[in-house]
């Protein structure tokens, strides 16, 4: 059921990991908008985790899925469990706020402590030894892949691609079989145990149709995320990805053609034992970044460093000007409509 023939745009996101401050505004904006109904408590269609880390769901990088780079066949994947996603806790609000236990009881998730996990559980742990410890934040959503293995794995044909290149599920057709969850190499699909359907990022398609940018993009206080049509050569996303090659997809070797891209993080300088500064060795190991963003990551970082040199020397850089996004609306691509101006008299979202 590939609908690529009719596709007219390919929406793409670019996250600048040098600007993401890990504030979770994107994930909360998404949560408030889309996952407040029954069975959605544990769902974070947008999740931001500290890297290196075990992430969401716990250990997702080792759960398989995607396509075998050698044979092109789909690779078996692990079915992420409710426990591996974690979260969706119930809290002892009653006891703390109304139980007359002031000073004694404190808010805490109910249920067993052991094995507890949630989105962003390993925040700011990162890796490396002091004073050369390092970490960065990685916002993750469904990649709205061009070759979506979730869609081809599904037995019922519940998933399809829209003319905007978004991968959407028909929840009436979904039987909750979860082959999509096994097959997705990014493990960005959640299961709704109450409604018995799988769910994932919908690219805020009702907003897109109204000319409004997705919530993750519009709400980001770091001005860290761009959206646009990857096929429009004038778009920021096209320039960052295709022209300047400073943004690359996550784990592209899984072969699904992801449409979410990342400007890789530059490293702080390393400190030597005598606390002198080592400007030659990046603190984040380049091979680690390569494991996430592929071999193109080194060239991308060199371009960024070169542009920064140019600007320091008094020159101009279109790349840095774009990434800085002096004008906030530049992040929104063609989706600049202010949602507050929409007519909601029919009760629409």
């Amino acid at each position, binding site marked *: 059921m590939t609908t690529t023939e009719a596709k007219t745009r390919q929406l793409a996101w670019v996250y600048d990991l040098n600007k993401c401050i890990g504030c979770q505004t994107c994930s909360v904006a998404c949560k408030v908008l889309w996952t407040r109904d029954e069975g959605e408590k544990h769902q974070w269609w947008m999740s931001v985790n500290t890297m290196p880390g075990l992430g969401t769901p716990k250990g997702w990088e080792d759960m398989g899925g995607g396509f075998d780079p050698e044979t092109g*066949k*789909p*690779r*078996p*994947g692990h*079915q992420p*469990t*409710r426990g591996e996603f974690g979260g969706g806790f119930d809290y002892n609000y009653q006891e703390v706020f109304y139980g007359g236990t002031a000073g004694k009881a404190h808010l805490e998730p109910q249920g067993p402590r052991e094995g507890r996990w949630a989105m962003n559980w390993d925040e700011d742990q990162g890796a490396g030894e002091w004073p050369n410890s390092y970490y960065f934040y990685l916002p993750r959503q469904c990649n709205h892949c061009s070759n979506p*293995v979730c869609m*081809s*794995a*599904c*037995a*019922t*044909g519940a998933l399809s691609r829209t003319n905007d290149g978004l991968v959407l599920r028909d929840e*009436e*057709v979904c*039987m*909750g*079989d*979860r*082959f999509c969850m*096994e*097959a997705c190499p990014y493990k960005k699909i959640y*299961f709704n145990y109450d409604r*018995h359907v799988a769910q994932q990022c919908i690219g805020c398609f009702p907003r897109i149709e109204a000319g409004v940018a997705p919530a993750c993009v519009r709400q980001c206080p770091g001005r860290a995320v761009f959206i646009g049509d990857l096929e429009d050569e004038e778009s920021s996303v096209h320039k960052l990805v295709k022209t300047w090659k400073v943004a690359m997809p996550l784990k592209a070797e899984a072969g699904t053609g992801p449409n979410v891209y990342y400007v890789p993080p530059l490293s702080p300088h390393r400190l030597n034992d005598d606390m002198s500064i080592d400007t030659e060795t990046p603190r984040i190991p380049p091979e680690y970044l390569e494991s996430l963003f592929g071999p193109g990551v080194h060239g991308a970082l060199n371009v960024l460093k070169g542009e920064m040199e140019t600007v320091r020397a008094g020159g101009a850089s279109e790349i840095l000007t774009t990434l800085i996004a002096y004008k906030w609306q530049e992040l929104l691509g063609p989706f600049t409509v202010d949602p507050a101006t929409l007519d909601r008299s029919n009760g629409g979202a």
Partner: protein
Amino acid sequence: MKVARLNGELADPAAPAWGGAEAVSITLGPVPIGAQPTAYIREAWAGRSYGTTGAATLAAASDGERLYLRLEWPDGATPNGEFQDAVAAMFPAGGDAPVATMGDHDRPVELWFWENGRGPLRLTSRGPGVVRKEAADGVAARGDLAGGRWSVVLSGPKPAAGKPVGVAVWDGSNDERAGLAAVSQEWLQLELA
């Protein structure tokens, strides 16, 4: 097999009325891996055993209006919380539909489907797991787990005379769902009294 004409609480799998119905053992086997509908399922499950329930016991009864099918089979391992045990009765819905693949593209089967904690559902199946939800149309189900055995009664409007029945069982503790089922290897004629 004979469909007994009985009165009583036939929707309840523990009802004494079921003592009056003939019970037959139905041999089940896994839906062939080659018939699974997507490359992902074929790759991921080629090396895993599924459709592990070897047999189920079927009894059939009618109160004149509705057909009641009582299925009983041994429960698998402790559920993992992700997938649930399930059962379905199958009827050909067009031509000589194959039972062992749960129908195919041109020859669908109708499923009366029950899953622990969910259902019942009436489904049209055009191959293993290739299903569409249909209006319930009076299909009902009730399941009991006792002594390590599931007993489930599936019921619906009495089908036309001469309709055969098939059975599918899913062991949730083995991640079985969709076409990863144990199914009857041949249709069983129902003799409606």
